[in-house]
């Protein structure tokens, strides 16, 4: 069952991710990205990360992607006429990317020769309670800095997007 779920949602994630990259219309890309995020949330659940799965749906798929869709609508961004950059870049970067992917996969296979099986329910340390406990004790400092980061994001959005004065 775990394996079926993994392969199903991994396939959805990969297909959606390819769709993000090849679709011409930004809205199609954005909706495909939501698909990636949704299927990743299921994989997070399989890995025992309940809180992160929920946050993934609420923060990522919910808030961030809505922001993207909103801006696409606001700017009335249509389909690109010629969506790709020059063929030289493609010719150089494509083999490099495939090489990178092959190397990473090889390294991962070698790095974990007898990797454990991922069985749903074997790790249950990802509940909101556990995350909260860690967040407010060992990770208190980054949590506090995050508040400054979010403040800056708010100021930045206002500073950059406000109307001209006078």
């Amino acid at each position, binding site marked *: 069952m775990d394996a079926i779920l993994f392969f199903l949602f991994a396939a959805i994630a*990969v297909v959606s991710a390819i769709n*993000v990259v090849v679709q011409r219309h*930004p809205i199609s890309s954005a909706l495909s990205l939501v698909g990636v995020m949704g299927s990743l949330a299921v994989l997070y659940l399989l890995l025992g990360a309940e809180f992160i799965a929920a946050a993934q749906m609420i923060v*990522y798929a919910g808030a961030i992607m809505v*922001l993207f869709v909103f801006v696409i609508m606001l700017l009335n961004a249509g389909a690109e006429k010629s969506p790709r*950059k020059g063929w030289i870049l493609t010719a150089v970067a494509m083999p490099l990317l495939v090489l990178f992917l092959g190397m990473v996969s090889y390294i991962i296979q070698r790095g974990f020769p007898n*990797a454990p*099986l*991922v069985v749903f329910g074997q790790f249950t340390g990802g509940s909101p309670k556990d995350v909260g406990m860690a967040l407010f004790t060992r990770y208190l400092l980054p949590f506090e800095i995050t508040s400054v980061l979010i403040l800056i994001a708010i100021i930045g959005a206002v500073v950059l997007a406000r109307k001209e004065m006078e």
Partner: protein
Amino acid sequence: MPPIPLPTAVPLTYYLILSAILFALGVAGFLFRKSLITVFMSIELMLNAVNLTFVTFSYQHKQVDGHLFTFFVMVVAAAEAAVGLAIILTVFKNRGTLAVDEIDSLKL
């Protein structure tokens, strides 16, 4: 006829390779796409791939620390998205285009 043995679970490495694939696709989108918004979405895809590695390693170590890192990456992504989209808005207001290669008043 004996039932075909279905795999009951997959090894951890499958998750990591999935994340590497997503990361590479994000990089591909960043390099090959023209529209600013799509390029920015590709970066979000990369960050999602990183999140998957963190959660997977958290499972491997049976710790919650990786989840915490994922949580913070999400916050960073949200902050970056807010500022980034505001910048994209100003670029569009001043030029009326979202194509990366038409935005070139600073010579390369």
